[in-house]
């Protein structure tokens, strides 16, 4: 049986996307925790260009970028499919996955920006939430994937779990549940799925870590 290795970091949403996909399909894997401030030679060997996590290594071959990894996993292990079978529905799913992927690096800056820059990030968050509420979650479905979660649900994980963390770290409220009822329902549903619920990083731990990181960034800026 081929060995699957996953290089990850305990607080990264991108890493959790891969963990959830592997667990949903029942694929055994070896997890290697990386200290992002002191990356291992093995990680650098597998991902010399980007030096980032997650990296999935299957049969000794590395794959990077969480969405690329998820699509690869879905192709190699077709049980519990993560994308719709119908090509049009699949295209709609991939559209929303790209939407989430494009927003994620921007919205992650919420806790480490200030003033005008932070306002711009808040605007991006609201645009994303509005698009989800008005266009993506149509038909009152439980999940983007229908009755079960799929790759689209996984792609929006930052909204479900990390948004609260960023808000706490930044001391700023962005998400008002009453303004986004469908998104709120979806968040509850998503976090109730056993594989998700049992595999989420502790929010207090992340907030503490990000607050320390934010302090370090502000200190280095003022020096």
């Amino acid at each position, binding site marked *: 049986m081929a060995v699957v290795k996953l290089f990850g970091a305990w607080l990264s949403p991108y890493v959790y996307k891969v963990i959830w996909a592997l667990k949903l399909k029942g694929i055994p894997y070896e997890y290697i925790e990386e200290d992002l401030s002191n990356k291992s030679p093995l990680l650098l060997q597998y991902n010399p*260009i980007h030096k980032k996590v997650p990296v999935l290594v299957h049969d000794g071959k590395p*794959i990077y970028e969480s969405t690329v990894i998820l699509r690869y996993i879905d*192709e190699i292990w077709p049980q519990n499919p993560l994308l719709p079978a119908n090509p*049009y529905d699949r295209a709609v799913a991939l559209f929303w996955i790209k939407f989430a992927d494009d927003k994620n690096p921007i919205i992650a800056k919420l806790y480490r920006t200030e003033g005008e820059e932070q306002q711009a990030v808040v605007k991006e968050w609201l645009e994303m939430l509005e698009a989800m509420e008005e266009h993506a979650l149509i038909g009152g479905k439980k999940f983007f994937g229908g009755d079960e979660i799929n790759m689209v649900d996984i792609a929006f994980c930052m909204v479900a779990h990390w948004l609260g963390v960023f808000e706490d770290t930044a001391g700023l409220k962005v998400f008002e549940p009453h303004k986004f009822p469908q998104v709120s329902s979806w968040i509850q549903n998503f976090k109730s799925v056993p594989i998700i619920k049992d595999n989420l990083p502790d929010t207090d731990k992340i907030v503490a870590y990000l607050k320390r990181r934010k302090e370090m960034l502000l200190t280095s800026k003022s020096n």
Partner: protein
Amino acid sequence: MAGKQKHTRTKNQLKMGEVKVLGSWSSPYGLRVQWALGLKSVEYEYIDEDLLNKSQMLLKYNPVHKKIPVLVHNGKPIAESAVILEYIEETWPQPHPLLPKDPYERAMVRFWINFLDNKDKVAPFITFFIGVGEEHKKAVNEAKELLKLYEEQVLGEKKYFGGEEIGMLDLAMGWMAYFGVIEEIVDVKILDAETFPRLHAWIQNFRAHPVIKNNLPDHDRLLQNYTEKRQRFLAYSPHTENA
């Protein structure tokens, strides 16, 4: 072989249904879609959008981004060029498959398309076009580094990014095929044959392919239109240095 192609073409005509493409004459993202359909002998109606005066149709078919390209197949719209290319490949797998069969190689193609479409990787080329001074110098260096990566790590010794035939990654790299016009306007050459011999050869091969050749923006029109565009940016840019 000719008989087999004819059969496949008829199959596609039957499967085709109604295919529309909303694009823009100079957009590499729209052209990717047109090239893909052309390579697969899929007939389509092309609708050129004036991006300063978007049609109701575009706003209806892509309400989230209001951007081109949009593919409309039997009345159902799909947006995002990379997503459209995958849909085209699944719906019309023959002739001219655009993705390799091997899942790992497919992952690599998807990785590189995602990489080169990333805002941070496009930005240096945009700044090369409309930037000035220090900003421009920095952009030139960043652009050259990216080109080196594409030449050495991605293209390597292959004729096309897709190997012996044009593949999805070649279509995504298609902007390079008429980057020479940008260089002409800026009067700075970065994608030169001496520094990037393989990319240079790729451009010649890509441009010569019958489907691509018939679907490239007109050189003179590009020159005029992009010169005007650049002048507008420089006039309104807070960073413009007075000559």
